[in-house]
């Protein structure tokens, strides 16, 4: 694990950890000052409401580090049982990883390789469709600091950062006084496009309420306008729920902007059309670069979901939903993605790392998961840990353990843990399981 030295000054009983990194959402704010007292974070300076809940609620607990079939067990027994489950399976699935550091993610991919299993991450039920769209048309994008320094037209589509990424506006997208937008918010126009008038819409200059499930039509309307194609006003209104003149006004602003930015969320990826929606948005962004500079970015959710995409990609060549059953990586969303393998009752064992499929998957997927032996790693008691054959209660990354996390714009950031946990971290647990798996399978890599 790469644990950078904790930069801290010790005042009796109170430890300050400066520039700690919050891993709750994809903003991965790395400017948090933590006050730690008696192995408890008492203050998380600069953290948002989600960040405060993250830092202040991950406290030491006296739950056992390992449960086998719901009964306390030693870690050694847990590792042994986990390795047996994974090596006995014919179709094992390893899933989750969006709240684990890259160092642990790498071990998880190794295990999937050795056992000939699937490695999949929560990307598949998050921005997986955006990943597929990117494979179709590419992506024009930038780091978040570019938005802060240059963005003068900021459009959020199907994304509600006021509730999902509370510091997005202040740190990256609307408020910062940047190099080429010296007056901050005053130099920017903010547009929100959504089916409901979210809390974020209140921060916008323009709110465009579109018809539910009409994102694809709305985006293609804009693509047509970008090309100067004439459209039937009546049809645009009935297709998108929005007057053509509103779209024309938006396109005029988009062309007039110096540096336009789309941030898009699960309003696109989770709604009918999915990757076709995001592909339309990525293609529109590309089109706009014939007129001005324009970029788009998915507002990624969990702390290190972007790291998971990166690690799985560099090790296998594919970003998620990777099957090793033939001894080498194959990729096919819908076939090798976890929710599908469970709903179709194909997987016969699983390891769920920092995720909660027993709460967030379809009923058919949950029922099958409950019927097969699986291992769960989580910092908290969840529906998934409760139904696991082996459950590891793990230390929290960024609070108890170090490592690396990728912000939603692929910028890797180190963690500065605040206090030790009696529980092992994901990296430790997965490494111990990998060692046993290798021994069982005669792997000596």
């Amino acid at each position, binding site marked *: 694990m790469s644990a950078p030295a904790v930069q801290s000054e010790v005042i009796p009983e109170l430890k300050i950890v400066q520039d700690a990194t919050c891993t*709750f*959402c994809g903003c991965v704010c790395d400017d948090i000052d933590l006050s730690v007292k008696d192995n408890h974070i008492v203050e998380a300076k600069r953290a948002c*409401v*989600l960040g405060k*809940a*993250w830092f202040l*609620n991950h406290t030491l607990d006296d739950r056992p580090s390992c449960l086998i079939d719901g009964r306390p067990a030693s870690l050694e027994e847990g590792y042994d049982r986990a390795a047996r489950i994974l090596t006995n399976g014919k179709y094992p699935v390893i899933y989750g990883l969006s709240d684990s550091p890259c160092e642990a993610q790498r071990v998880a991919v190794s295990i999937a390789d050795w056992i000939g299993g699937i490695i*999949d991450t929560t990307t*598949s*039920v998050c921005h*997986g*469709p955006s990943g597929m769209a990117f494979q179709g048309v590419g992506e024009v994008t930038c780091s978040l600091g570019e938005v802060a320094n240059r963005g003068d037209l900021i459009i959020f589509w199907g994304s*509600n950062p*006021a*509730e*999902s990424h*509370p510091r997005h506006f202040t740190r990256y997208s609307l408020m910062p006084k940047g190099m080429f937008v010296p007056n901050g918010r005053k130099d920017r126009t903010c547009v929100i496009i959504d*089916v*409901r*008038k*979210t*809390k974020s819409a209140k921060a916008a200059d323009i709110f465009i309420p579109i018809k*539910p*499930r009409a994102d694809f039509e709305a985006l293609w309307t804009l693509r047509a306008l970008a090309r100067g194609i004439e459209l039937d006003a009546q049809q645009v209104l009935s297709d998108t729920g929005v007057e053509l003149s509103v779209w024309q006004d938006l396109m005029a602003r988009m062309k007039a902007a110096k540096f336009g930015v789309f941030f898009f969320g*699960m*309003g696109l*990826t*989770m*709604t*009918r059309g*999915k*990757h076709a929606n995001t592909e339309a948005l990525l293609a529109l962004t590309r089109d706009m670069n014939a007129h001005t500079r324009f970029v788009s970015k998915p507002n990624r*959710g969990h702390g290190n979901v972007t790291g998971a995409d990166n690690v799985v990609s560099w090790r296998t060549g594919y970003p*998620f*939903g990777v099957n090793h059953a033939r001894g080498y990586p194959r990729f096919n*969303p*819908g*076939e090798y*993605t*976890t*929710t*599908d393998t469970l*709903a*179709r009752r194909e997987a016969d064992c699983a390891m769920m790392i920092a995720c*909660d499929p*027993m*709460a*967030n*998957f*379809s*009923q058919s997927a*949950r*029922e099958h998961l*409950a019927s097969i032996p699986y291992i769960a790693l989580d910092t*908290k*008691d969840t*529906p*998934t840990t*409760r*139904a696991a054959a082996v459950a590891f209660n793990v230390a929290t990354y960024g609070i108890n353990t170090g490592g690396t996390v990728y912000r939603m714009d692929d910028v890797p950031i180190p963690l500065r843990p605040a206090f030790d946990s009696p529980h092992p971290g994901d990296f430790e647990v997965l490494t111990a399981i990998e060692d046993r798996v290798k021994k069982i399978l005669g792997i000596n890599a």
Partner: protein
Amino acid sequence: MSQTFILIPGRTSDQGCGISEGKFQPKYQKQIQSLQMSPGDMQRLAVKEGDWVRLTSETGSVEVQLVSAPKDELPDGLLFIAYGDISCRLMSGDTHGSGMPTSKGIDVTLEVLASAIANTSAIANSTAKAD
């Protein structure tokens, strides 16, 4: 009396905080079973905050408690619920070859339940299968 709606599950800050506080804690549980409805629809259906309703999709059925959506957040015909255990019961296992279940924009029918018949037992029902 059943009515057709489109359901949008999504993130709320209370639900996000609830994840860190613990999924079995009251705050989180309350969040994921509170269904937001527009004031217009509430008036039309003559329902009030706290009433229990049953949502049924192609796939499943859940019982949740109504709250009024904050002023003008929701247009009529649209319902909102914090994404979680309950909303996902309405989602199909079919991802149409994408890996992603259709988790937003779900067609549901809504029935108003006789006052408070469900309440606590609904909470129990919703989590029982997880064990």
